[in-house]
């Protein structure tokens, strides 16, 4: 379980996050949604302590992430898997080396064991056989999937995905959503997914947090989101053509 409490962050006097709090539970896929530029990625970076917020705390199963020395933090970091918005694959390494990298750096596994684990993860994201390619030789969607494979290779307790399906075709997009949901259920991971894709919202949102201009305006799940009447949320949800037609015809 991850708890965030009153996280505030501003850049150059511009408030990007304003006292955001929330709880992300184990075995659930929690979504953070909101329009572009509302601070979703910044919230994620605060939770990962890549950006230190001015106020607030992040607790990983009760362990405060902002206090303690680097060694304590490293223990928590070992339990995290992160998919960045752009994939963040290491350009100079092959797909296989990218996925294997956390194992190389953080574990004492033998070569054979590592190879098996990497192959299992690549196969899990549907990329068996591409291990030898360089990141510059694969498509954007494949990069995302390699990013997911790298994020899950250490069997994380906490999984973070920043827009796992932006820029993907609808079919691949759904597959990735399902993949995330599956591994979350299967391994009891605490998963936080940032998205603005309504498809994902409706299909995998065990719990949803809506951010608007740096504030948390609404919280619920994929069932309650359609019936709610917060104007900003309605605007966000029903800009989707199919959904707005559906509402008009209901």
């Amino acid at each position, binding site marked *: 379980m991850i708890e965030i409490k009153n996280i505030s962050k501003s850049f150059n006097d511009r408030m990007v996050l304003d006292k955001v709090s929330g709880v992300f539970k184990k075995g659930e896929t929690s979504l953070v949604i909101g329009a572009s530029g509302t601070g979703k990625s910044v919230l994620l970076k605060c939770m990962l302590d890549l950006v230190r917020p001015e106020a607030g705390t992040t607790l990983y199963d009760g362990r405060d992430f902002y206090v303690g020395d680097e060694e304590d933090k490293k223990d928590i970091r070992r339990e995290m898997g992160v998919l960045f918005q752009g994939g963040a694959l290491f350009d100079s390494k092959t797909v296989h080396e990218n996925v294997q990298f956390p194992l*190389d750096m953080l574990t004492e596994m033998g070569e054979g064991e590592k190879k098996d684990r990497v192959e299992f993860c690549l196969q899990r994201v549907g990329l068996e056989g591409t291990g030898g390619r360089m990141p510059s030789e694969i498509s954007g969607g494949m990069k995302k999937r390699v990013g997911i494979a790298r994020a899950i290779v250490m069997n994380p307790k906490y999984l973070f995905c920043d827009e796992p399906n932006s820029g993907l075709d609808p079919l691949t997009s759904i597959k990735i959503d399902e993949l995330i949901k599956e591994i979350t259920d299967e391994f009891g991971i605490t998963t936080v997914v940032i998205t603005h894709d309504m498809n994902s919202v409706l299909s995998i949102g065990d719990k949803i947090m809506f951010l608007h201009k740096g504030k948390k305006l609404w919280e619920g799940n994929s069932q309650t989101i359609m019936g709610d009447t917060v104007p900003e949320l309605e605007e966000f949800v029903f800009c989707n053509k199919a959904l707005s037609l559906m509402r008009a015809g209901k």
Partner: protein
Amino acid sequence: MLSVIGRYLIFLGKLFTRRESLKVYWERFIDECIGIGVSSVFIVAIVAVFIGAVVCVQTRANLVSPVIPVYVVSNIVRDMTLLELSSTFMCVVLAGKVGSNIAGELGTMKITEQIDALEVMGINSASYLVLPKLLAAVFTFPLLAIISGFLGIFGGYLAGTLSGIITPEDYVYGIRYSFIPFNVFISIIKAIVFGFLISTISAFQGYNTRGGALEVGQASTSAVTNSCIAVLIADYLLAELLT
């Protein structure tokens, strides 16, 4: 300005704290020696041979007095090469090649979140990425300086003997005439210091890139400019100190 220097010093401190295992560094070090050192041999060789040749020809053209023995030409080529060309001049060239390369690489890693990806794995990204580059530069620059010194003198020899302005015997005599071995040592010390400055300043510029591709370009440019300035200032200070 002062705050930049302060941040640079903090950055240097970060390189040496919380390191990864030696095995990891060893592999990265070998890679960087190839990337920084071996791949620079060609440019260093070209620059050294030609500068040596030019110094030889120019010195001869300006020393027209019959009272000056001709071996002074190679004597001057030797001292110029060892004292300035093989270290300072070479490092200014390397600041362009190695500096922009380091800043570009780290800048790109920064803006594409690769550095963040290292950090969330609990790896000290500054140390993991930069320390091997620093060690590789400090290790290979002196070797390059030796190559450069040797080829500079050789370039002078080629130009001098092929154009007939100095006989091979005179050239060799001039090179050996009142040779101070300490000058080789100075050249090596300078290359070590400059290697340190170029690699860390360029890494600092690249590592602190914010924004997009445009800023990566700017970081590369300022890496080269700042490294050159630092090299020249350090050159002056070392000259005061060592001679």
